[in-house]
């Protein structure tokens, strides 16, 4: 028998191989399509968002489809006084200029008015579109995608309408000038693409577990296009988003992320300038004593993360349980109004947040005429921009403005993240960190420039006027620290940061800051923002990073408890159809264990409620002779009883291989099995007899109880 089996296998081998090749092939094609789609969406959104953002300030009259930078692209350069006189970009018309004609004060007021009005219009439109067409498109989406990848199903969350509305809403929300980013939502958009394309391939569309592989790859593509960081995207998917990350999907995720980044790069929305998001052009060395400010930045980032999470969750909880939650559109409008009103006067808040970050992390070069670059440089020196110099007055005024911008961003982001429009968190938290970092960097720079002979700094200066401290590096480190504090990412954060900036040699500073930030954050409270939102919403998410260290055993957790009614079981050959139906009516379990007999309780298998329901309904409709008191048989052979009603054979719907554990199994092992095997329930036996059942929810409730939380906050309970 066995031998024949093997021979049969061999004959099937060839066909199996063809089928296997087709299967593997369909996976590759699917991720290819997902990558292309994600890249295209990202390209469209990038172009749209910058265009709409600049619409708040003015318009390129001769070619309305250009944003300000592109409008002035081929004319005389943007930010330099001309050789002869101050030639400004002539093609770009600000609203003030167009309406008031020329007067400066009038132009400012009209510009202000238009800025606020456009912002309100965009915010309103975003909120309305989300509300009317796809409410699931709001928020960042990462907590939900984490939950989905852990095995939970949210119908419609990754649908076509969500994709469309999230893309459009993201553009509008960013253009409204709100303190939010489009990087988190990109992950959601990419996952929508993944879900939609997986329906083209039956292997993936029909199997939720397989589909999650595609979604893992898609979320890698999302981060990849958000930052132009394919490797960072894969690591983000691995570290933060994905729950089961089988190694065989690593390669496919990387492929998907790479294709997406490549497509985005081919679209090349704004010319070569933007290939790497915040590309830096310096590679100055850093010195060992600079690690102290870097670690300090890390600690600040951790603190910021902790407090941001705390207050944001407080506010979201308030929104959830108070009357505020009933006015979502009004809330969006209010936040937009306040943001627009307060951000116009300060140039560092008026500009696009990612432009601000770019400004902060870069080094002052010869072409920069901004306040931040007002240093008293010795222009006769070679490589003058490589060395630090004494700051001018403009730098001090820039520092004041940056401090105001910092406070504004910190406060408004708490209220912005969670309003009912698509909103990501990466860019605002990076901006906060970059501002702190730049300020600290300038402070440290000035300290050293004024004491170049000090013993502590002697190795940082080649000569008294040749000290190398790069404030942009501090901004970069600060951004990493703040982002790390908020999201508690580690490796992926560092990789994203250096793919984002291209600064491969700054991995140690970045690492030190990210590590400190994570340690400080974890010391104050273990949860990252996404986990906190998962907990706030009560999604059934079994964290795979936390170690389960308690000594409870399965018997402590299983249902039924000591005083509960006995477990609802089905016997394999004695229950009638009627009894089964009443069991189905009276209970709400998702499935029932099948046992040999009610007395012995030896376990035979497990049957799903849905299958049972369908099978009985089917049998009632079609099979002849199946009546209410037909006996249901789950056994292989059915005794022939010519007198009684026709038996109902249901062996084929019986799961003969349910996962079982004994009642003495430590919960540590049980939790590991739930995590690693992705179980929904497991049956508890003792000496072969069925004792009870543990579902995923029981496990979650148990963990919540051990952490002194309210176990009933788990969703849909």
């Amino acid at each position: 028998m066995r031998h024949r089996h093997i021979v049969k296998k061999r004959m099937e081998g060839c066909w199996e191989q063809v089928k296997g090749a087709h299967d593997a092939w369909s996976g590759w094609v699917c991720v290819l399509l997902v990558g292309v789609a994600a890249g295209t969406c990202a390209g469209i959104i990038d172009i749209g968002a910058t265009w709409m953002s600049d619409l708040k300030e003015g318009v390129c009259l001769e070619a309305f489809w250009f944003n300000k930078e592109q409008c002035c692209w081929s004319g005389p350069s943007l930010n330099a006084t001309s050789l002869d006189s101050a030639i400004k970009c002539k093609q770009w018309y600000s609203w003030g200029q167009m309406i008031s004609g020329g007067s400066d004060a009038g132009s400012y007021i009209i510009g202000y008015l238009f800025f606020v009005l456009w912002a309100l219009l965009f915010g309103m439109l975003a909120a309305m579109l989300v509300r009317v067409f796809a409410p699931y498109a709001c928020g960042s989406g990462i907590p939900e995608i984490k939950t989905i990848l852990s095995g939970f199903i949210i119908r419609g969350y990754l649908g076509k309408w969500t994709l469309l509305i999230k893309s459009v809403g993201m553009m509008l929300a960013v253009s409204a000038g709100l303190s939010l980013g489009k990087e988190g939502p990109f992950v959601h958009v990419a996952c929508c693409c993944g879900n939609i394309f997986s329906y083209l391939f039956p292997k993936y569309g029909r199997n939720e577990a397989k589909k999650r592989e595609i979604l893992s790859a898609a979320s890698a593509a999302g981060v990849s296009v958000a930052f132009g960081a394919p490797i960072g995207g894969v690591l983000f998917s691995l570290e933060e988003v994905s729950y089961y990350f089988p190694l065989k999907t690593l390669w496919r995720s990387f492929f998907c992320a790479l294709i997406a980044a490549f497509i985005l790069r081919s679209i090349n929305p704004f010319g070569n300038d933007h290939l790497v998001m915040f590309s830096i052009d310096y590679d100055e060395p850093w010195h060992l004593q600079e690690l102290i400010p870097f670690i300090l930045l890390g600690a600040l980032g951790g603190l910021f993360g902790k407090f941001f999470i705390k207050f944001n969750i407080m506010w979201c909880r308030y929104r959830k349980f108070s009357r505020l939650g009933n006015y979502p559109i009004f809330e969006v409008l209010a936040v937009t109004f306040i943001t627009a009103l307060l951000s116009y006067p300060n140039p560092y808040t008026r500009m696009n947040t990612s432009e601000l970050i770019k400004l902060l992390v870069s080094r002052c070069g010869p072409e920069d005429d901004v306040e931040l670059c007002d240093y008293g440089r010795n222009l006769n020196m070679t490589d003058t921009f490589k060395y630090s110099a004494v700051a001018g007055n403009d730098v001090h005024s820039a520092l004041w403005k940056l401090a105001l911008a910092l406070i504004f961003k910190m406060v408004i982001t708490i209220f912005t993240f969670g309003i009912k429009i698509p909103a990501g968190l990466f860019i605002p938290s990076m901006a906060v960190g970059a501002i702190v970092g730049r300020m600290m960097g300038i402070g440290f720079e000035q300290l050293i420039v004024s004491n170049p002979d000090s013993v502590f700094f002697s190795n940082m200066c080649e000569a008294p006027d040749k000290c190398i401290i790069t404030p942009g590096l501090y901004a970069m480190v600060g951004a990493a620290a703040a982002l790390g504090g908020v999201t508690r990412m580690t490796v992926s954060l560092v990789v994203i940061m250096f793919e984002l900036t291209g600064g491969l040699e700054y991995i140690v500073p970045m690492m030190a800051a990210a590590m400190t930030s994570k340690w400080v954050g974890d010391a104050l409270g273990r949860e990252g923002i996404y986990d906190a939102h998962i907990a706030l919403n009560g999604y059934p998410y079994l964290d795979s990073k936390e170690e389960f260290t308690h000594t409870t055993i399965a018997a402590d957790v299983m249902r039924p408890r000591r005083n509960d009614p006995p477990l609802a079981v089905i016997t394999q050959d004695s229950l009638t159809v009627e009894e089964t139906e009443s069991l189905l009516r009276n209970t709400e379990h998702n499935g029932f264990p099948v046992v040999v007999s009610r007395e012995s309780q030896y376990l035979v298998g497990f049957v799903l409620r849905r299958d049972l329901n369908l099978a009985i309904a089917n049998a009632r409709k079609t099979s002849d002779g199946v009546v209410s008191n037909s006996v249901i048989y789950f056994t292989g052979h059915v005794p022939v009883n010519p007198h009684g009603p026709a038996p109902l054979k249901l062996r084929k719907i019986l799961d003969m291989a349910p996962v079982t554990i004994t009642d003495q199994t430590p919960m540590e092992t049980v939790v590991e099995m739930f995590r690693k095997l992705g179980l929904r329930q497991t049956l508890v036996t003792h000496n072969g007899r069925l004792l009870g059942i543990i579902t995923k929810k029981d496990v979650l409730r148990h963990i919540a109880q051990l952490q002194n939380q309210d176990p009933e906050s788990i969703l849909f309970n």
Partner: protein
Amino acid sequence: AASFEDTRCKCVCDKTWDASGKETRAVFTNTTRSEQCDCEHVVKPLAPFLSCSRCLCRTETRNTTTIKVVVIFIICVVSLLFVYMLFLLCLDPLIQRRPTSYQQHTNEEEDMSSGPRTEDAAATTPTGAGPSPQAMSARQRSLLNMVSKEQKKWKGTVQEQRKNIYDRHSMLN
């Protein structure tokens, strides 16, 4: 009229001051492809006194057509959505004049709960793979009916999402 070219040559030089003490510009761009992109061809004609050793030139390209097409596409999409939204918000209630019913169901139970209901739920999602059985049986009916039915289903889904988020606050807070 300005021309919007696809290629430019951008030279960044060190800042200097001219005779009158005024800062000279540091960035020079040139959009005529025919010339070579180096300091001699771009900076020298404008500023003969600048030393080319302190200039860095780079060719940059963009794709104006892509930008134009995408922006116009976005405007169309947003307008369409806006009009459809207005229709749904203002006209639809007037036309239909009856409360849209939706069935509340809890989400996790769904994928393991009783068969017919799950089938139903799957069919109501806009992401459902292929037409559902009900939709198949409706082949006899007119196309218009099918569209309106699809629309009703979609509305049901949206209303349920709305309920989850805006009323029960059970998700996405």
